[in-house]
């Protein structure tokens, strides 16, 4: 059963983006269950430094669970995670200080101003005074919201809040940025705006990005992708390689092929 898919996993599995490349994130044999429900099943993948990696999966695929584990909200029941070589369990501080996160749910403090939200985050990373203010000013200007700094977060639009969250995630200078469905609920323009901004950071500042989404149009051919379905990695590698291995026209077709038929059950491994 599912032999075609099984083959595909082998095809598209050059695990390291390129030989000798620095790894931003390394996830190995990660499994996690909520009670009897298996949310992640032996998930392994790598994301190279200065790379835009898309984590592609439908609702319930396990994307947010994976993010919860990478951000150490709780430990995985099995498997390991390295962030720039730091094992998350043994060196949580070293791993987390290299990590910036935009969660799926909005997490700005609505009662505080944008600026206060940023300074609070800076403090949570041990930054204060001039250093914190300079960095906050810079990241806010990057997302073109410098003029809204003193406003309450509550007064921002959804897209603006997302941009502030991205600015906040970058405030402490992380090397790896995780974003969990950052464009959900935004209009086309705001979406494009955010995708463009984050891609620019990868190109110009060498940031590593793991971008979780179910929206095919956010994937570019040159990206790396990890296709997650029902807690199992169904394919990973360069998008063009995944498309070719799946025998599809484009990533949309490949995603469709990879995520159909296996609902509820596990893919034969």
């Amino acid at each position: 059963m599912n032999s075609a898919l099984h083959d595909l996993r082998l095809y598209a599995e050059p695990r390291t983006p390129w030989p000798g490349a620095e790894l931003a994130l390394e996830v190995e044999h990660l499994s996690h269950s909520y009670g009897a429900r298996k949310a992640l099943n032996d998930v392994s993948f790598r994301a190279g430094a200065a790379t835009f990696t898309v984590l592609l999966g439908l609702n319930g695929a396990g994307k947010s669970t994976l993010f919860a584990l990478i951000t150490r909200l709780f430990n995985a029941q099995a498997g390991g995670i390295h962030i720039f070589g730091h094992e998350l369990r043994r060196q949580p501080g070293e791993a987390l200080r290299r990590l910036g996160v935009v969660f799926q749910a909005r997490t700005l403090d609505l009662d505080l101003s944008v600026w206060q939200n940023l300074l609070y985050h800076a403090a949570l990373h041990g930054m204060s005074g001039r250093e914190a203010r300079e960095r906050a000013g810079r990241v806010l200007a990057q997302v073109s919201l410098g003029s809204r700094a003193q406003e309450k977060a509550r007064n921002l639009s959804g897209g603006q809040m997302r941009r502030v969250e991205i600015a906040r995630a970058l405030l402490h200078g992380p090397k790896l940025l995780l974003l969990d469905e950052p464009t959900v609920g935004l209009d086309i323009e705001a979406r494009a705006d955010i995708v463009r901004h984050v891609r620019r950071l990868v190109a110009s500042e060498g940031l590593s990005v793991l971008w979780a989404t179910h929206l095919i149009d956010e994937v570019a051919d040159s990206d790396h992708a990890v296709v997650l379905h029902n807690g199992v990695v169904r394919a990973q590698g360069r998008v063009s390689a995944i498309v070719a291995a799946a025998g599809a026209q484009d990533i949309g077709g490949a995603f469709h092929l990879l995520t159909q038929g296996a609902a509820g059950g596990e893919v034969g491994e």
Partner: protein
Amino acid sequence: MSMAHPSAVVNSRQGFSLAQYLTCGRGIVWREALRFLHQRERFVSALVRPLVWLFIFAAGFRQSLGIAIIPPYETYIPYEVYIVPGLLAMIQLFNGMQSSLSMVYDRETGSMRTLLVSPFPRWFLLSSKLVAGTLVSILQVYAFLAIAWFWEVEPPLTGYFTVLPALVLSGLMFGALGMLLSSLIKQLENFAGIMNFVIFPMFFASSALYPLWQVQQASLPLFRICWLNPFTHAAELIRFALYGKLDPLSLAVVLGCTAVFMAGAIGAYDPARGLIALRRGPGGNG
């Protein structure tokens, strides 16, 4: 398996300096204080609740309930004076439940996640959060005491200072209790549940409204329950401290409970235990 991680060695400085710890802790307290200032309704309702007890309940019972001279009091006292320490403890209990539970269930969903993804050790983050909540509860307590003063609840002036350490301890105890509950209890999804199952029982089955010896005369089992209730000991610790005295037993119980609740809360939020994973927790999917 990846064995060698050369980048681990070349990477920048490790760990945090003491100054950075201070920055982080101060930031957590600062945010809590800002939220407190911005949420005036919360402040007002935190004050109205005990004031209703003081103005209405206590005034009504003033005639029917005489309080004999019991330590720490040295004279006959009106009932209003008797219930004030219990009301101070109630303010702190409410605050502890509210700040911890709102972290998880209310609008604040997700703020716990923002906090926990900080690279500082988790015990430090949670302790800072507790200290912050305690400071806010102490502000509320002093505001209440100021109003109560006009209602002729006038402890000795030095009492306003000597009560402070007691307030710190009981504030930490209730904050830690709230944090523990927020991580453990899956059924009590809202504040009403906490009111019914935690706040009311703790408040009523305590020495807040009647001296324990009166309870003992009325019902021995109830007396035992009151005596085992940590709230009783927080209220007594505050009562004695307000008159410049120390109740060693209460101090021991409050210290012990604070340690146990805090260890429990930190343990419950330990990523290895994964307790928060068991429910749709802080900001997972909104």
